[in-house]
């Protein structure tokens, strides 16, 4: 149906204003405190971010130290690609190689840390239900999406994660050089003895989630795009929801902090950083 007569600024304004109140599945909750279906024990007044991204969409946020972030696999087939940087000094960023090397394991999950390149903890992984982290395969690119789906540009039908990161970071004054290697949630990849990759095709369950805790002031950027090893010929990705809420700074006796000598020193380095 063609729009009504929009021949004057007043009519154009009325037309624009008439659109308010539209609700779609994938949008931010503004104000965040109006978010529904919160995790148990979370008070609405403590919610600082609540947003759902559909396939190809992205979000970014600064999370203050102590903030908890739940990433939910709303309809069982999302793939959340995530990067993290020190919000106060973004030249410090997530270092996936240090993360797996220092913790002696390539498979991350609840109880593990996401480390920066400066020997500090950006985020702890505090809880999960089938979080299925992949630390190996990285983000989709324009080239990888063009190969599988026929195109990969941001303005097209198959946006890629790497360019989403670039645009997200651009809004914080950062650029291509600032995109670090990322982790992926909700699609697992394992390595065989010969070094070969195995993509876990078994579907998850609606409501699967991973929960992270900011141990510094962290800038996170997240893109919801199909995993680079996903063999399906159609661009397939279901909604991912992020909900973040305020919380206290991690105390010295926290079990994730004290889990290993390496984790203790990582948290000590964080405290040392906050002295200045």
């Amino acid at each position: 149906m063609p729009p009504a007569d929009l021949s004057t600024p007043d009519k154009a304004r009325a037309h624009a204003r008439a659109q308010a109140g539209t609700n779609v599945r994938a949008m931010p909750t503004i104000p965040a405190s109006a978010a529904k279906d919160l995790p148990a024990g979370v008070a609405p007044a403590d919610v600082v971010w609540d947003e759902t991204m559909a396939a190809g969409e992205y979000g970014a946020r600064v999370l203050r130290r102590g903030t908890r972030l739940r990433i939910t696999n709303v309809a069982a087939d999302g793939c959340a690609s995530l990067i993290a940087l020190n919000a106060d000094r973004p030249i410090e960023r997530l270092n996936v190689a240090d993360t797996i090397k220092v913790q002696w394991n390539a498979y991350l999950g609840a109880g593990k840390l996401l480390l920066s390149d400066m020997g500090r903890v950006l985020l702890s992984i505090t809880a999960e239900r089938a979080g299925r982290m992949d630390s190996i395969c990285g983000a989709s690119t324009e080239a990888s999406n063009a190969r599988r789906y026929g195109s990969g540009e941001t303005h097209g039908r198959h946006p890629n994660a790497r360019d989403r990161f670039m645009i997200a970071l651009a809004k914080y004054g950062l650029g291509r050089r600032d995109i670090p290697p990322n982790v992926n949630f909700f699609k697992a990849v394992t390595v065989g003895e010969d070094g070969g990759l195995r993509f876990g095709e078994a579907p998850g369950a609606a409501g699967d989630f991973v929960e992270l805790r900011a141990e510094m002031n962290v800038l996170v950027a997240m893109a919801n795009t199909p995993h680079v090893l996903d063999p399906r010929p159609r661009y397939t990705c279901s909604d991912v929801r992020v909900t973040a809420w305020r919380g206290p700074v991690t105390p010295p006796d926290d079990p994730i902090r004290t889990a290993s000598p390496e984790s203790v020193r990582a948290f000590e380095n964080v405290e040392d950083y906050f002295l200045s």
Partner: protein
Amino acid sequence: MSFAIAEPPANAPTVPGAVVYDFVIPARAPWAHVVKQGQTLRIVDLEGNQAVDCILYDANDPAERYSAAETIVAQQNIFLTTGTRLMSTEGNVLMTITGDTCGRHDTSGGACSCESNTLRYGHHTKHQHACVENFLDALGRRGLGKRDMTGNINWFMNVPIDGEGALGIVDGISAPGKYVDLRAETDTLVVISNCPQVNNPCNAFNPTPVRVTIFE
């Protein structure tokens, strides 16, 4: 700094091509050089089991750089050897491994740093020399910097991942004289840290020189 030798030394490398550059990187030192499209860089593990950390950049647009994830996904395998295409962040091929007498190389374990050393071994290691120091040194001399740091290759380093995901730097499988040949598919800035790490087996607890030869 790196120096091209004017006269071939008495022990000139035997490579399948005309030598345009030949240098022995001292133990613990950084090195960087542009390898032009079509040229091949040979890195020789002179004394055996010396980890050579390495990052590649498109010489004409260094914001496009080596991507471990792209490289692993392109071949569906975490180990680098003959035939591996060393991929960029934008999905282009920077270099191809055309020869490998060692067997396999790592791109998962990252580079040692003063900062990560304090996590791995203790704060007493803070002032030991480390690969990230070398990378920042080499990058700084070329108008690049910490923003250009990213996940790297470790030539001659052995990092298996077992069935449970357990990962670690273990005794190397290299030996004196083993080498890799890397053919540049585009003008590539190759930055190397001849790893100075002495707290794990990556250099057999003894950092040693390596040789770099460019031929065409």
